[in-house]
């Protein structure tokens, strides 16, 4: 199908718009759910929607979307309430409560579903489409309902942004300010249920949880503030939705919902691997650079010590001796040092291995190392650690006067400092 044909494809446009709406709303609300460490709430709420769908169908006597979505929302709210009551009134922890409620509601839903299918005939009810979604069956009117629900939820988030943010970050402090924390948390949970309802036709109850969690988790990797995170999660959700819809239209017979979820999961994978600051690859590269720098400094210090022992600043140290001293090959560290001019190759006796001489720059660097890592860092060392992720080897400079230095102490940025401390030990 050509690009032009895609654009004019009515069904695709409907599905893509629906998927985009779903992506935006689940990205925004999922951000709050993930940050409240309630990622599994989406899972429970979506599975819990199934009995609501069935009851809505039974109540209306037909596949009436209003009744079905209303039933799904009510069942989701009931499930959320059950989780809350279970954790408050019993000693059950949240994860156990979420699991228990999920299984109970989903089992009830499956039982109802089989009942309906026996009674009405599978073809007539077609409720099993809600298990995995059936985007192609979506109508313009459905998208309008979805967009209306989404607008209401997003409007609430915009209106009570500050309150939702505080309740998510520090609910106890929020209570001391007089905020109705329970009501705000309930609102956030009910809005997740709304997102689930929006996604029912598209993705279905089984995979909907991924749409709540994935865009938020991906977005968190790239940004360090709530506002940008929510916006980015919405963008990732929307892009996943549209991508899923388009791929599904290109490849005949591929289900849209799972493709949308796959696209969002791909975004998570890429983000977890590559995001600067938090990505696995980024952390690995930072650690490797630090390990190398540390090695270089230790080799330099050893050469300086050798030179001092021999009373000859230009004492040529044999590589084999350094290898023996460090118990492993120093060639990579030496060539890195040579590349930046801290050491140079020296002429050596035939039959012996390579020799290296420390240069003037190298000497200055080694002397700076010997002088200690600096008063400021000595004071910081052994005090409290940076609570951040990543390298962990960053001292906590605390003095107000030192704060300028501390500013650069984010992981990786002060390789030199932490290496120097490592070398000094």
């Amino acid at each position: 199908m050509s690009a032009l044909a895609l654009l004019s494809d009515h069904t695709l446009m409907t599905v893509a718009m629906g998927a985009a709406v779903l992506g935006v709303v689940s990205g925004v609300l999922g951000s709050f759910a993930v940050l409240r460490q309630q990622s599994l709430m989406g899972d429970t709420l979506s599975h819990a929607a199934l009995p609501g769908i069935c009851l809505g169908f039974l109540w209306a006597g037909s596949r009436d979307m209003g009744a079905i979505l209303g039933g799904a929302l009510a069942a989701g709210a009931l499930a959320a309430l059950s989780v809350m009551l279970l954790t408050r009134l019993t000693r059950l922890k949240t994860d156990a409560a979420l699991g228990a409620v999920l299984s109970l509601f989903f089992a009830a839903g499956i039982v109802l579903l089989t009942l309906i299918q026996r009674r009405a005939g599978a073809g007539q009810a077609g409720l099993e489409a809600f298990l995995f979604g059936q985007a192609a069956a979506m109508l313009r009117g459905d998208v309008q309902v979805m967009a209306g629900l989404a607008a209401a939820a997003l409007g609430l988030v915009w209106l009570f942004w500050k309150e939702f943010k505080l309740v998510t970050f520090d609910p106890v402090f929020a209570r001391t300010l007089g905020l109705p924390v329970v009501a705000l948390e309930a609102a956030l949970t009910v809005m997740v249920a709304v997102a689930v309802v929006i996604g029912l036709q598209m993705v279905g109850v089984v995979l909907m949880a991924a749409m709540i969690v994935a865009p938020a988790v991906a977005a968190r990797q790239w940004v360090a503030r709530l506002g940008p995170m929510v916006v980015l999660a919405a963008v990732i959700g929307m892009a996943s939705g549209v991508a899923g819809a388009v791929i599904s239209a290109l490849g005949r017979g591929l289900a849209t919902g799972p493709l949308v979820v796959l696209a969002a999961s791909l975004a998570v994978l890429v983000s977890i691997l590559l995001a600067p600051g938090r990505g696995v690859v980024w952390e690995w590269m930072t650690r490797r650079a630090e390990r190398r720098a540390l090695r270089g400094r230790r080799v330099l210090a050893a050469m300086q010590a050798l030179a001092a022992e021999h009373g000859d600043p230009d004492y040529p140290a044999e590589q084999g001796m350094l290898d023996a001293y460090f118990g492993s090959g120093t060639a990579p560290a030496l060539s890195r040092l040579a590349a930046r001019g801290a050491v140079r190759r020296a002429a050596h006796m035939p039959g012996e291995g390579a020799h290296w001489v420390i240069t003037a720059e190298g000497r200055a660097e080694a002397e700076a190392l010997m002088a200690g890592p600096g008063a400021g860092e000595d004071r910081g060392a052994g005090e409290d650690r940076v609570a951040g992720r990543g390298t962990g080897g960053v001292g906590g400079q605390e003095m107000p006067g030192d704060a300028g230095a501390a500013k650069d102490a984010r992981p990786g940025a002060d390789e030199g400092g932490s290496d120097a401390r490592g070398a000094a030990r």
Partner: protein
Amino acid sequence: MFFRRESGSDARLHEPGLALHVEDLTVSYHARPVLWDIDLDVPPGVMAAIVGPNGAGKSTLIKAVLELVPKTAGHVRVFGQPYARTRRRVAYVPQRSSVDWDFPTTALDVVMMGRYGHLGWLRRPGRDTRERAMAALRQMGIDDLAERQISQLSGGQQQRVFLARALVQEADLYLLDEPMAGVDATTERAIVALLQGLRDRGRTVIVVHHDLQTVRRYYDWMVILNVRVIAQGPVAEVHTAANLRRAYGGQIALIETPAEGPAAAG
């Protein structure tokens, strides 16, 4: 009712001369009393330490005052009124571990949260809020970390952020839960200086404190707690070997054995 402005005077003022008045307070978790029959009075303008062994109910006492845990019995008055009517005059610094420091927000943002109660619903923090928050960060000596993501702060810096958040609340009573736990000596000195400054300006400061060695130097008022109140009053009178032994039993070896003063029994 939330974010409500306090109504003026209340005809039913009870012990208005005290910053904090606690009477017959009992708190239980799962039928086990954590606090039992607490009677406690803290006059305004003092800096008070709450000390006691692990499980003595120190944090619970503060949380009961703030109505964060339900009371089984008793009542609490803050400046003569129930807490719900005086919340705007009270600032709370929770334990640092009570929040997820990986939350995507900046130091400045967290401090501005201290003004949310003053802002009320729907109003967004503006320039005034921002300036107050910056001033508080400056007072804590970390204004250059304002835009730093909070997970990139050291433990001591995080504690300073929490204190700055309490400062912008411009309260009359400050309740702090172990603000010096796990911070370095420099930060501890800065925190003590700040709190003493608040006291010198007439505020009341109540601190859950864990280091008996420093109580005499930092505080002028003291409450020794172990499920019940063991002793309370001016530090010089209360900080006695006998009182501490009653609270801690054999758990501590007392370094100093000050002259046994009259114990102001709770």
